[in-house]
């Protein structure tokens, strides 16, 4: 019989970690309140907007609708894990250069979602980016500048123009 508190072992942004989580604890609350990583944001809370997107074992998931215990044995990447010290990830650089963010509330989720796309498809077409990224909502930028940021990032990462 499983207890109400579960020990978990997982990798967080490249480091081994362990913790104890309650069964009903949601991943977003674990990340924000227990790990003190507040870059992941809650907005709609019903898996639609994508502000809470994190990467779990290489897949973009909605942390507002997954239990924290699911972390056990898995690899979690939050926005805080993207930069290497002072060196920004090409996606982060590109979002800055091309105005892919304004208020920043959707940005963590947006960048992580984009990372999963580029990890699977290093040189997507604009239409492919649009279809994939349609998962997440931005209210500020009008989307076009996000598309251009991702295309620039792809260029930076592969050396090939989009």
């Amino acid at each position, binding site marked *: 019989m*499983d207890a*109400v508190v579960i020990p978990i072992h997982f990798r967080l942004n490249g480091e081994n970690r362990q913790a104890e989580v*309650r*069964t009903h604890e*949601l991943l977003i609350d674990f990340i924000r309140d227990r790990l003190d990583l507040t870059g992941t944001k809650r907005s709609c809370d019903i898996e639609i907007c994508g502000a809470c997107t994190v990467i779990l074992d290489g897949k*973009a998931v909605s942390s507002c*609708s*997954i239990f924290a215990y699911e972390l056990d044995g898995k690899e979690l990447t939050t926005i805080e894990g993207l930069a290497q010290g002072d060196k920004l990830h090409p996606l982060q650089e590109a979002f800055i250069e091309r105005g892919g963010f304004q208020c920043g509330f959707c940005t963590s989720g947006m960048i992580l979602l984009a990372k*999963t796309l580029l990890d699977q498809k290093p040189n997507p077409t604009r239409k492919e980016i649009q279809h994939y990224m349609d*998962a997440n909502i931005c209210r500020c930028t009008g989307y076009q500048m996000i598309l251009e940021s991702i295309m620039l990032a792809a260029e930076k990462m592969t050396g090939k123009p989009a």
Partner: protein
Amino acid sequence: MISPFQLHRPKTIEEACALLAQYGEQAKILAGGSELILLLKMNLAAAAHLIDIKGVAGMDTIRFEPESQALKVGGLVTHRSLETSRVALEHFPLLVEMENQVANIRVRNIGTLGGNLCFAEPHADPGTLLTAFGARIKVRSTHGERLLDIRDFFVDYYQTALERDEILTEVEIPKLPANWSGAYLRFCPGERPSVAAAILMQWADGTCADARLTLGCVGPKPVRIPEVEVALRGKAAGEILAEGVNIGTKMSDACDPPADIWGSVDYKRQIVKTLVSRGLQKCVRDA
């Protein structure tokens, strides 16, 4: 907020069934959680026990079984796995095309086909296409296994034929013999599809030998319209193309879509007509 629950993580299907039998009404099956967790958060469902079956062996594979000529999809296969499966693409490209449109990539990454079917949300994609495919649903309990025709599996809004102590383990999709062309179309003005149509047509010498027309999202469960299917048999491709809109009208008259914020009954019927006639056009083109 979600109330605390006792978590169980069975490693075998037998264990899972035993737990479900033991806890009955107090327990809910958790697969991907993309529906259940929302219900728990909104207090529309409660569970003192959650049986997380993601660890159950043997339920997450996709394989084509030559003996039975059927694609066997484990209940725990995620939409994303199906969407990117070479095996599925080889035998059922339309299935891959449909899965690519389900919800969004985040939901597809964790949502399972089994979970989707068991939730029986009328505004969903897989059920409609699988009904056209004539899929069979394998379910299991401590009493044994059953194989249900998908048309018997869906009962009503959010209701399936699953007994209290049964778990969906596999979806079987019989391969269509050669000379079939198909289309899956959906109308999705909001988050979930408002109307969906799945059409499969078998051809012999430019004539329709068999047809399966299924409508989804326009009632409690996906529905085939046998009168229209029968009427199509023997018709030439050109005839079908010319009569596309009429056939669509017959389909829309045969269903009873509910009005909601996405459209009145008349408009939904118009969408049915449109999706069907366009689906028929595609089937003729791809024949």
